[in-house]
């Protein structure tokens, strides 16, 4: 036994276990985020249960089952306007009757979240429409709303759906769980479906449809539900703007440090300093961004252009420009280090050959060194962008808001509005998943935003890894 342990194979297995644990942790994290984020788009069955109350009476409850554990069921009952809370725990042994009626319909509403109920009929100007195919009539009217309603087009242009109701298009009469009939105006309905009737393929189509509308729609008026389009848009614009600031400065600094600077103690110190700066917490950059960019530069700009005492401040408050400048500063060390490293990997012979043929230092750099180091520099840039897209801490201080009425880039001159506040996917995760007062309803969208953010950042990283891989292949390492 002692010899066996000395040979070490068991210890090697212990170390292999550490690799396995790390990989499992990552997989579990992604799986949890994906399941909690995407489950809300799946048209789950709507259950109708006869539920015994502690005092002996019984009520009917309707909803989708979100979780089951230890004899308790978490039910999403929807209908927030009528019943207050959206979620409800019930005890399984108290369920007397359990059905999934085919006629049960789910309504996605512009305000107030989902609504469950059985359709009785469709009304226009107070009268029930006499038709056999009530469901078909409802669908036709919903298509009519979406086709004619100019609001849909504007919704993309404006950050938040303003929620103006178009002309009256009738209403739908719905029987809800407690036996009352409720009239929903068709203008207030986004979508309606009958999950208990759907086939698997229909469910799949519906799932992707819902997910897609989460990506391309703005949030609803009441801040609960709807999509994250403005947040995605804000993230992309900010990251692009940041790259514009970042790339020339970072690459130039890297080139200077490796190619032009005298390689003495000063260059070595600068190198260590830059590497250390990459490890300085992002919140410190946020403090500098707020203090220097926003208060000093922005406030000064306001005083200079608009006179002192301008209120509300234009540049003297957090906004797109300051946020992207701060993030550029934050990612600068990463780019400098990557540029430097890919330059240092180039064999001496290439440079010396070029010099021997009479090329100047600039010509050598331009035609020999940079084309070879290009993919490496690009890799560093992509990694920096990925890091910046996931950094939220500085943005908490720098002009990211819960909901912005206007997008930072639109059709009115000067098109790119540097001073505007904007929405951000990462901040949406923080806001909806943690700050929100209605946490039960907003946590699922927060997870959906989280999985979107993770997907974007992972694809950027994969691109960087592929690029790095091809680089290795080329240099024959």
């Amino acid at each position, binding site marked *: 036994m002692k010899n066996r342990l000395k040979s070490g*194979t*068991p210890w090697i297995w212990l170390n292999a276990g550490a690799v396995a644990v790390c990989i*499992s942790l990552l997989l579990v994290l992604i799986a949890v985020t994906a399941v*909690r984020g995407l489950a809300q788009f799946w048209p789950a069955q709507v259950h109708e249960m006869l539920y015994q109350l502690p005092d002996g009476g019984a009520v009917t409850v309707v909803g989708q089952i979100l979780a089951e554990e230890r004899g308790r069921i978490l039910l999403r009952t929807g209908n927030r306007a009528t019943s207050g809370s959206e979620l409800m725990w019930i005890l399984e042994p108290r369920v007397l009757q359990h059905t999934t009626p085919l006629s049960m319909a789910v309504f996605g509403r512009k305000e107030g979240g989902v609504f469950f109920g059985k359709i009785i009929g469709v009304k226009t100007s107070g009268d029930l429409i006499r038709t056999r195919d009530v469901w078909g009539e409802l669908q036709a009217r919903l298509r009519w709303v979406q086709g004619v309603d100019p609001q849909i087009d504007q919704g993309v242009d404006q950050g938040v759906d303003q929620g103006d109701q178009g002309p009256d298009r009738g209403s739908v009469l719905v029987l809800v769980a407690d036996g009352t009939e409720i009239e929903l105006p068709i203008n207030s309905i986004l979508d309606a479906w009958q999950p208990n009737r759907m086939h698997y393929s229909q469910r799949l189509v519906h799932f992707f449809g819902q997910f897609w509308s989460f990506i391309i729609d703005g949030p609803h008026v009441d801040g609960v539900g709807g999509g994250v389009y403005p947040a995605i848009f804000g993230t992309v614009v900010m990251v692009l703007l940041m790259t514009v600031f970042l790339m020339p400065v970072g690459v130039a600094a890297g080139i200077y440090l490796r190619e032009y600077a005298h390689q003495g103690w000063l260059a070595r110190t600068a190198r260590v300093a830059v*590497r250390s*700066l990459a490890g300085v917490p992002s*919140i410190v950059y946020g403090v500098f961004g707020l203090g220097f960019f926003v208060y000093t530069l922005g406030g000064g700009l306001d005083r200079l252009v608009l006179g002192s005492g301008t209120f509300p401040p234009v540049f003297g408050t957090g906004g797109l420009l300051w946020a992207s400048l701060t993030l550029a500063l934050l990612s600068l060390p990463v780019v400098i280090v990557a540029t430097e490293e890919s330059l240092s990997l180039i064999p001496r012979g290439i440079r010396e050959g070029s010099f021997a043929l009479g090329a100047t230092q600039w010509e050598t750099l331009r035609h020999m060194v940079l084309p070879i180091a290009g993919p490496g520099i690009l890799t560093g840039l992509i990694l920096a962008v990925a890091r910046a897209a996931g950094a939220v801490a500085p943005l908490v201080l720098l002009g990211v808001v819960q909901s912005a009425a206007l997008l930072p880039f639109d059709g009115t001159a000067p098109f790119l509005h540097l001073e505007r506040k904007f929405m951000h996917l990462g901040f949406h995760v923080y806001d909806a*998943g943690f700050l929100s007062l209605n946490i039960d309803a907003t946590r699922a969208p927060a997870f959906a935003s989280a999985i979107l953010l993770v997907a974007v950042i992972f694809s950027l990283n994969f691109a960087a890894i592929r690029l790095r891989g091809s680089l290795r292949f080329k240099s024959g390492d």
Partner: protein
Amino acid sequence: MAFTAFALMLVYLLWVVSPLLLPAGNRLTAEAVLTLRAGIYGTMKAASFSLIFAVPLALMAAIYSACFMAPRVRCVVKPVIEMMAAVPTVVLGLVAVACFAPWLERHLLVVVLMVLLAPAALIGWGWISHRYGDRLNLPVSTSLEWLYALPVVAGIFLVSTWLNEPVQALLFDGDMGQWLITLMGTNAQQRNGLVVGFVLGFATIPVIFSIAEDALHAVPKSLSNGSLALGATPWQTVTKVILPTAGSGLVSAVMIGFGRAVGETMIVLMAVARMPIMDWNPFQGLQTLAAEIALGLGGSEAGGELYRTLVLAALLLFAFTFVTNAVAEVFRERLREKYLAL
């Protein structure tokens, strides 16, 4: 230009806090001192807890990846583990507050059992496969042990989960967390130091892993080949030759990981209840410098008392992480020169 920007940053931070530091200026109020002290204490507490979790895992994974993996496998596994660093910390915070904290409250014993059982099971499995591998036709191929370890780890997790309730009922009156809290005589939070330690550890693992792995992998092959040729086993080669050579690289990896844990904002902001207390109780909340800055700075008046205090906190963070990283970088630079000389 880039360097000017960084210098400007340092100068600006110093300028804002200068009234607090100069002898002639107005001193810090007692309240500000308390905020800073509790913040520093909490920062150290959170970062230390995370390292207790992250350092063993990251270093062991690094040893395996650098010394025992075939190059082709390593090319895949290393980026996958480094991908842990790409997960935005706000997502980690969300998972911590919405999933992990409620889970840990009832499954603390699962974690304890995992820590006890998983190494034992792995070592046992390694011993069996080494001893009887030929006879039973068990997989003994080197460099793929981690794949076979995956089901072992998952199995131990399932066993621990299955044992959770019976063992708690038997030994801890049904609830281990409550039992411990009563034992320590304190009250507790659901989002406590333990939660933040694990989640912060998740964010720190890839940082430590990546740097340590590079240091171990860069040890000249002539050294390890020489050791193997003299008849040392692979494990002896690792412990007696590779680890001592790359030692300073491992130290710098842990330092850089510590720096990262110290400055982490979003995880702490979300995963732990904010409490200005100073103790090492893992079931209590805490507050860190970074989280205080994120919460307080936006609402504070520019140039005011709170503003200056928080900028001072930022300066402390800056100085601490910068110095830690710089020392670690100097270690790495030395190590690189050593390797070149070998």
